[in-house]
């Protein structure tokens, strides 16, 4: 028996080995796949262009938020809640929202060209909306792309960032997920009529326009003006305000233009209540709007809107900064040369055509962060990158490659750092004046 088996498989392998390989065709098809992938990647990136935002993707599930399986399974059964179950594992604010039933069910369905789209409900506050949805078709939809997506208020497109993706490794006729809209400015919900518009990239370019309005009252954002000055090794910042709404807590921080060092970011921002419970920054999703290099940024944290803490203290520490003048690199794309770079430990820079590759040392675990920020050419014009990628060559290095659009660029180009792990030692605190 064994011999027969062996013989069968030898034959099988031999048979396959007889197949001629069309090398040229294979190479062509490989190139086509890569081009298709790059095109789609570019389309995805374009969505974000209208609003300056920073995002983080959760790579490891944070275990600090414990969710009882009973609670998770109970809410998973409510129509439209399944996409939110995952969210509660990494955002305590969303968990509170669901526990406090701050959710409006909608269940609005439309069917066109065999595609059915259902807007399940909405969680809305003055800063944004989460819209859980499902869509299905009598065929596989796991690869279906969207072409356009808008949220309209009384007929006008709302200036907002939108965060969405669906993912299924297997073929599936049903997708359940959520859109997260973050408004550029707080919106007024009086007499507000919304429309969710979505256009799929199927053959017929199927469009759905789903009107909806909200009946439940919208929770008012609690805003605390602080204007508290803090100093980290002589570098000044002002914590201007803290706003807490159901979906997020926003902290607006301004930098002192007279600082000798440029602050790149804050790796430790926490809110602590009197019992020692803490709320941290957003792990997965929108983390900030604005750009610190312009002097002011609003950082988002998980919300504790539905709690009534007696005291709330804001901690800011692990401030990343570089001395001004040593916070950028200068490259010449024509000469394919790095003209200057600061002498920072472990920093490596390469220029190749319109690509810039940078390596920096890191103590981050399983996390990628953007290194290359604003790029300005010799005429003061900002230049943009078409695509970028991050990877970790080893445990202690982050590498980023950006491909810039260098049409009409005047060399040299100055590219500012957005990250380097040079921390200022101090941690500062401020009490939030709750009443």
């Amino acid at each position, binding site marked *: 028996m064994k011999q027969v*088996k062996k013989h069968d498989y030898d*034959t099988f392998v031999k*048979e396959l080995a007889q197949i001629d*390989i*069309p090398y040229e065709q*294979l190479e062509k*098809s490989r190139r086509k796949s890569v081009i298709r992938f790059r095109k789609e990647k570019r389309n995805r990136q374009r969505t974000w262009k209208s609003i300056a935002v920073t995002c983080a993707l959760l790579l490891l599930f944070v275990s600090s938020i414990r969710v009882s399986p009973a609670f998770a399974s109970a809410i998973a059964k409510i129509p439209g809640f399944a996409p939110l179950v995952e969210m509660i594992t990494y955002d305590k604010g969303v968990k509170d929202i669901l526990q406090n039933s701050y959710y409006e069910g909608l269940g609005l369905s439309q069917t066109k060209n065999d595609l059915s789209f259902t807007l399940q409900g909405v969680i809305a506050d003055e800063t944004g909306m989460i819209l859980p949805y499902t869509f299905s078709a009598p065929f596989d939809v796991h690869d279906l792309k969207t072409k356009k997506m808008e949220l309209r208020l009384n007929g006008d497109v709302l200036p907002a960032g939108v965060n969405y993706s669906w993912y299924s490794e297997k073929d599936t006729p049903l997708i359940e997920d959520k859109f997260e809209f973050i408004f550029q400015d707080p919106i007024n919900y009086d007499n507000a009529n919304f429309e969710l518009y979505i256009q799929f990239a199927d053959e017929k370019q199927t469009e759905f326009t789903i009107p909806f309005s909200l009946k439940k009252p919208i929770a008012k954002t609690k805003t605390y003006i602080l204007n508290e000055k803090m100093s980290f090794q002589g570098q000044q910042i002002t914590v201007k305000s803290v706003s807490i709404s159901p979906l997020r807590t926003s902290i607006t921080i301004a930098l002192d233009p007279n600082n000798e060092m440029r602050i790149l970011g804050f790796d430790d921002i926490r809110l602590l209540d009197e019992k020692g419970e803490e709320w941290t920054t957003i792990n997965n999703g929108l983390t900030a709007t604005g750009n610190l290099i312009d002097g002011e940024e609003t950082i988002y944290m998980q919300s504790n809107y539905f709690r009534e803490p007696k005291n709330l203290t804001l901690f800011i520490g692990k401030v990343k900064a570089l001395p001004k003048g040593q916070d950028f690199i200068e490259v010449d794309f024509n000469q394919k040369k790095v003209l200057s770079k600061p002498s920072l430990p472990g920093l490596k820079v390469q220029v190749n055509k319109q690509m810039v590759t940078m390596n920096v040392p890191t103590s981050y675990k399983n996390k990628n962060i953007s290194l290359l920020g604003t790029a300005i050419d010799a005429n003061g014009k900002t230049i943009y990158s078409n695509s970028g990628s*991050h990877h*970790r060559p080893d445990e202690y290095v982050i590498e980023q490659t950006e491909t810039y659009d260098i049409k009409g660029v005047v060399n040299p180009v100055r590219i500012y750092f957005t990250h380097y792990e040079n921390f200022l030692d101090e941690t500062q605190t401020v009490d939030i004046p709750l009443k």
Partner: protein
Amino acid sequence: MDEEALVRRAITGDEEAFLHLIKQYEQTMYRMAFAYLKNEHDAIEAVQEATYRSLKKIHTVKEPGYFGTWLVRILLNICHDMRKRSSRLDLQEDIEIGDHAPNHERFEITDIITKLPNEQQELIFLKYFQDYKNRDIAILQNIPEGTVKSRLHAALKKLKLYFTEKGEL
């Protein structure tokens, strides 16, 4: 650089590393696709789709050691789908059973294998084509090792049956 290091780089979005890897697997992939689809045009299309899908989903690979297997499974899924969609090919296959035309003799065993139920085919490809250990397959498919062995045994028995029947014709 060894394959695992390349896979790790590819997972974090390094396109060059991915291309390097896919080049190593491309010919194996093409042979498998050809075994299923029986013509160059479809086989190329299947490999192209598999390359695209794997490039898109490479970030979801959790265990770099299983990259090859992961790739093979993507390709098998595409081949199954393509065959399902094309009734013309199904028809042709029906005729092929017991066909002694010299043209088909080349793929005697391959034809038999590609007619087995999907899960058994996959096991054969994983086991004998990719040369994986039983334990690896069990981890991959989330089933105990014993089950792999018994499924494999069933697949082999069926194969032997096909083989004997054919021999008797």
